[in-house]
């Protein structure tokens, strides 16, 4: 029987930050043994993998909500995280841009919310906005500037933090799908929500059943993202909580053709922060997302209607964009929930859930982790630590915890001298495999043998940015399949895009 202290379900940014934060601790008399399970073949594949990549200032979250609290606290933690984990992060500042005189009034309530939460914001004139972003719509009337907002690479941040968790002893199991909970034998037959609930008011969860077998743990942490409602319902918690996937579609623009240097939001709508035009850490301009409620939690498809909608939205901010410069499209699903905020002055029912539920033992429950969960994740993780301590866990900081995750060389970011030195050290860094993004064989091989090995094409793409350029991998794909097969010691026929069932090739050609 495999016994752990803590089992974390889900390896998006929230599960990852929890894993990394908990890896800091021991118990008084023993190690804190942490198992971390993820149903996909890699970490960072759900909501974390496809979003706007913004570290939000926190001026627009509902005051008094967990969203506001963790957003503001989380935002402040990103500099240290980026330094320790050596991932790219830029506090660029963000703008909410009013177009036309009638939108100007929408900036004031945002400013007031920011003031209430202590988030620095400033309303600037249309002329000032035009000066900072010359491509902005000519009818710009003003903007709310938030200097603490920024941009990140969610893939890089999540992968770096996850590696650091693993380096510090967390056991990660991929391709491991949560199926059900294992209950303490005394209450095992008497699941909450069933008729005998009254006799057993506090059943205890003692483990999880998964596609890869049973694992036992004193605490199970639900960081299942889009599937968090299904997990908590299996625990008998919050039967009324429901995650409605809200799909957002995006365009990625060719950075050789489009140079937007800012993070530009429109004035917000009721359902979202609106369709933004933003720069990214890779220099590509990102356009999107729309917000469409759908039923299927796996349906990250782009649609003709959605693409039309984001294009219209983008042109409202930057009318000069051309569809000819679109090099990629993608869609992400926001795990939006319906949890009421109990501490908000005005009614609000889209708050985060971060709790140890009253009615079950051994369960840390999270849910509704839509935006700004990426920003908030490090603070959410601290909140989870506090909950565990509050529940009597005597967590002690490890003396040998290493907060540093050394970054691996990124060829295209080096100057010529450093590039030459790197190739001299390992000639594989001299061989460019992805021409649009200048990713070398050395970088690919390093990722395949990293602390969390990249074993699929998409895993390599998320780690190196390969295949994201204007040819969308048409050039590199056969070459990467070759390298993966060679390094993993498998046939090219076994190499997949994103795990079992997505193999690129089906057989050899006729002799």
């Amino acid at each position: 029987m495999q016994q752990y202290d803590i089992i974390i379900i889900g390896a998006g940014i929230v599960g990852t930050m929890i894993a990394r934060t908990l890896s800091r601790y021991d118990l008084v008399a023993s190690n804190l043994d942490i198992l971390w399970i993820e149903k996909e073949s890699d970490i960072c594949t759900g909501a974390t993998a496809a979003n706007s990549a913004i570290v939000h200032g926190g001026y627009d979250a509902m005051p008094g909500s967990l969203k506001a609290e963790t957003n503001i606290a989380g935002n402040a933690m990103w500099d240290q995280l980026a330094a320790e984990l050596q991932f790219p992060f830029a506090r660029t500042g963000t703008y909410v841009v009013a177009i036309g005189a009638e939108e100007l009034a929408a900036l004031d309530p945002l400013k007031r919310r920011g003031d209430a939460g202590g988030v620095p914001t400033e309303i600037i004139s249309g002329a000032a906005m035009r000066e900072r972003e010359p491509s902005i719509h000519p009818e710009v009337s003003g903007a709310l500037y938030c200097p603490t907002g920024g941009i990140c690479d969610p893939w890089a941040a999540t992968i770096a933090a996850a590696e650091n968790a693993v380096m510090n002893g967390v056991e990660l199991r991929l391709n491991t799908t949560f199926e059900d909970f294992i209950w303490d034998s005394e209450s095992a037959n008497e699941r909450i929500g069933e008729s005998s609930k009254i006799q057993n008011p506090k059943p205890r969860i003692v483990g999880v059943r998964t596609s890869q077998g049973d694992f036992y743990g004193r605490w199970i942490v639900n960081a299942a993202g889009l599937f968090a409602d299904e997990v908590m319902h299996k625990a008998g918690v919050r039967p009324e909580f429901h995650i409605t996937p809200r799909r957002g579609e995006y365009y990625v623009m060719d950075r050789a053709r489009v140079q937007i240097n800012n993070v530009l939001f429109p004035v917000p709508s009721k359902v979202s922060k609106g369709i933004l035009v933003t720069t990214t850490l890779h220099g590509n301009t990102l356009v999107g997302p729309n917000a469409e409620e759908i039923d299927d939690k796996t349906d990250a498809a782009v649609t003709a209607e959605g693409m039309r909608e984001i294009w219209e939205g983008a042109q409202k901010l930057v009318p000069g964009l051309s569809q000819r410069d679109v090099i990629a499209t993608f869609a992400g699903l926001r795990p939006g929930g319906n949890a009421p905020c109990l501490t908000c002055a005005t009614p609000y029912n889209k708050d985060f859930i971060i709790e140890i539920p009253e009615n079950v033992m051994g369960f840390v429950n999270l849910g509704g982790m839509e935006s700004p969960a990426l920003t908030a994740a490090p603070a959410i993780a601290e909140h989870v630590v506090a909950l565990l301590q509050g529940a009597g866990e005597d967590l002690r900081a490890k003396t040998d915890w290493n907060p540093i995750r050394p970054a691996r060389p990124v060829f295209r970011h080096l100057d010529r001298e450093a590039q030459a030195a790197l190739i001299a050290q390992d000639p594989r860094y001299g061989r460019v495999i992805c021409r649009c993004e200048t990713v070398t064989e050395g970088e690919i091989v390093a990722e395949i043998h990293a602390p969390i090995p990249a074993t699929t094409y998409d895993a390599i793409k998320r780690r190196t940015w390969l295949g994201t350029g204007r040819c969308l991998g048409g050039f590199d794909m056969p070459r990467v399949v070759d390298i993966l097969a060679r390094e993993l010691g498998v046939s090219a026929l076994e190499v997949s895009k994103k795990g079992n069932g997505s193999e690129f090739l089906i057989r050899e050609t006729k002799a």
Partner: protein
Amino acid sequence: MKTTYDVIVIGSGPGGLAAAIAAKKGGADDVLVLERDIELGGILLQCIHNGFGVEIFKEDLPGPSYAQRFVDEAKAIGVEYLLDTMVLDVTPDRRIFVTSSRGGLVELHARAIIMAMGCRERTRAQIRLPGPRPVGVYTAGTAQRWVNVEGYMPGKRFVILGSGDIGMIMARRLTFEGAKVESVLEVMPYLTGLSRNYVQCLLDFDIPLHLSHTVKRIIGKHRVEAVESVAVDERWQPIPGTEEIIPCDTLLLSVGLIPENELSLKAGVTLDPVTGGPYVDDGFQTNVPGIYAAGNVVHVYDLVDWVTQAGLVAGKQAAQQITGHASRRQPKVAPHHVPTQAGDNVRYVVPHTVNPETLTEDTVMLQMRVTQPLEQPVRIEVRDGEAVITHKNERYARPGEMVNVTLRGRDYDAVRAAEKLTVHVVAR
């Protein structure tokens, strides 16, 4: 290692090899070809079908054989080359930064550079194809590399979107390999590739071609399971009620090619938004002195023979620049370049300018694509205003097939006097 050359050619496809050969033969001493793949020849090496060389050799050769003739010649006359070498950067003052495993990072310098990077395939993003992102959606050229170079099949049951040549050729190739090609869908009301490929690759194998049809969405989570096809109206809008689910495991895209000019942009070369390639004169020199462009990097050709021809012109011109022999065609007056212009039913004309003095010793082929198909006898006219300078008759004109007309010595006076050379392709 030698780092200074008379002429450096980027790319060893048909355009690059021809340019290197012509430069060397034209008197350039040191000619270097840079190739990112492990062999010379470019994309021809994965084009194992025949159809190459009919114009130049009057022979019907497979791609690798066609390439080999030029590889052999280049080697025989002492053209140097670096394989498995990627160009990272090119500067307007003709410095080139290359990298390779064997040679490391090297800075090269050339007196003339010939851009011959060819083109890349349009992707699903560029046509904004709806649906999720399962495995099994490839450009036709990527699939071609897998099948013909790597020796693997990417699927069993295919749908091909786009009637471009690579797509039709892959339809036949996949059929030979035992795969089922369900259909070829083309959003335009006409074929976009060569008619001969339609006959030899689709008709002969009973593969249906559906014009005015496109893919409405891709279906499948991990792997493509089907595509939904739909008929479109003349404005490319889906016609409701014509949707059809076609089960398949792979969707190939043959939806157009884009000249690959990211390096040209770095070198300060200005691009024509219509062709996607540089503005060039009749010697294929770009706006940056000493930087030439040849082949598909200028505009997308239909026949390799014309790519070779373009490479020969560019290479010869680069050599003349190096050797100073350009003086053979002494301008009688100050250099005077006459701009070309697309007229009726013409999308673009390459080259963008003609120097009349070229006509004193050479011909200049004007190359173009038509906007609309004309399935009747047509006349290609080069006009200065209303006056026809020269013309040529063809049996038809189709957007999928390049059209050309040649200016000759006898046109010298007319060209010299012309303000603009406008090309029209009109019904006779």
